């Protein structure tokens, strides 16, 4: 790894010193991978950290089909992360030091946040397999790639997706209706 010049060239060097195929995958897939991870960990910064880590591992392992590989690794990391987070919460609930920043959120920001929470809740109602297939499709993977990653038959992806989409929309609408009822 060559390091030279200022910070700017540092980053350029790094990018060009990546194998071209991975650099290309990085350009095309990074955002999708962050989005995919975000819908699992629900924390934008964590999602970015994990995505960076996934690419770092791809550089070391040099998988043949980097795109699919990245999503497998990312899914595993997100799962481990969720477990660890749950464990930490149990141990450290009483010890959190940093007080929550009191952000004066605008109405618009609140609306965006509650929409996000509704979608999160709706996604939670899907079966893990349906959710995974839906998120992978939304990340831009083909039926072929999704099948390879999930172990499902290629012919089953369409059926799974149709079910997942239907449930997502239904659960979202039901959640919204439920809120209105609850508010009276």
């Amino acid at each position, binding site marked *: 790894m060559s390091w*030279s010049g200022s*910070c700017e060239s540092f980053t350029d060097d790094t*990018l060009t010193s990546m194998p071209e195929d991975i650099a290309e995958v990085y350009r095309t897939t990074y955002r999708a991978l962050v989005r995919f991870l975000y819908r699992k960990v629900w924390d934008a910064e964590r999602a970015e950290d994990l995505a960076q880590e996934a690419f770092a591992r791809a550089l070391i392992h040099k998988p043949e089909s980097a795109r699919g590989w990245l999503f497998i690794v990312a899914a595993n990391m997100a799962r481990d992360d969720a477990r660890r987070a749950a464990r930490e919460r149990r141990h450290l609930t009483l010890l959190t030091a940093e007080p929550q920043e009191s952000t004066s959120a605008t109405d618009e920001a609140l609306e*965006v946040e509650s929409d*996000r929470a509704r979608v999160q809740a709706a996604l939670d109602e899907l079966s893990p397999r349906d959710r995974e297939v839906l998120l992978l499709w939304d990340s831009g993977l083909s039926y072929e790639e999704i099948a390879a990653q999930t172990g499902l038959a290629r012919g089953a992806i369409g059926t799974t*997706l149709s079910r997942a*989409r239907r449930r997502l929309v239904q659960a979202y609408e039901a959640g919204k209706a439920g809120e209105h009822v609850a508010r009276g």
Partner: protein
Amino acid sequence: MSHVDDGTLHAYLDGELAPAEAQGVDAHLAQCPACRARVQEERALITRAGELLALAAPPERELPPFRAGDVRPLKRLWWQVRLPLAWAATVVLALGIGSYLGSGSRAVTDRSVAEPLADRSRELVAPDTPARLMPYRTAAEPRVAKRAAAPPATPAPTAREEVDRVAPERKAIVAAAAPAPTPQAGIAMFEDGLLLQGSPISVDSARALLGAAPFSVQGAPIRAIYQTREIGYAAVVIVEQALDSNTLINVVNRRPSALALEVVVTGAATADSRADSVGALERASRARAQVASSLAAKPSAPPIRDETRNRPLRRVGTLEVHISGPLPSDSLQKLLQHVQPVKP
């Protein structure tokens, strides 16, 4: 041909059907109004599902450059260090109680060592608040705080000799913090204080951690960026830079934790507003940092030198920046005047 099932319809709309299959669907749709209607419904469903997922997307950011700092073998991340830290503190506490109960005479002699510290800490903060000085970040710190004021555990003989040569406040810290098997880590700490290298991170992560861009010396190539944990600070980011082929410096960016600030303010208010209360508090925070780094000390982790005692410090915005490296302190001081935020 029979009606098109949902799965085939979604695959058709997703453009994932083989050409022959797609032609079959086309042929059926041409003669089946019911399936044509379903195509409209399913297309709307697909669009709707996509819209909903878009609502649950992270804020769109520019593609961050991939940084080689992340390619280094992954080390333990700070949130993975927390629990072991708590365990270490538990072990230290248990050792301390054990040796206290086990050797009464030693406890008496050691008490004379510990007492000055206790007195000192009363100078530093309001009475009865030594434990509160510690931010309750992990289980480790409050316990260590109590340990520092209690009779210390028995360090290894070499450690004791070394300890006797340093100021009383430092003695108690090593006694409290260095477990017997690794006194080396505790001793080395006194020379100029140590920081542990944490996990390598990207500039973007560093910025997120600090709430501002990390500072670095302009013109010197950045070798790596690390994050590490230090008690009293919400985030610590170290930018490792090469001045030349064999001179490495570390630009340490610290964001003081909100809680620690609060405690410091409270402590200063009740400390009889002594003239040197700021200096005293600074010493206290240094002591905290030392406890933290010695607790986290692992033989495998190469320490970075950090001239804690008279480290040149520059406050820039919300950050405390200082530079450590194998250079005379006036050079470091000069370098410190040339730090600039790392550009994305």
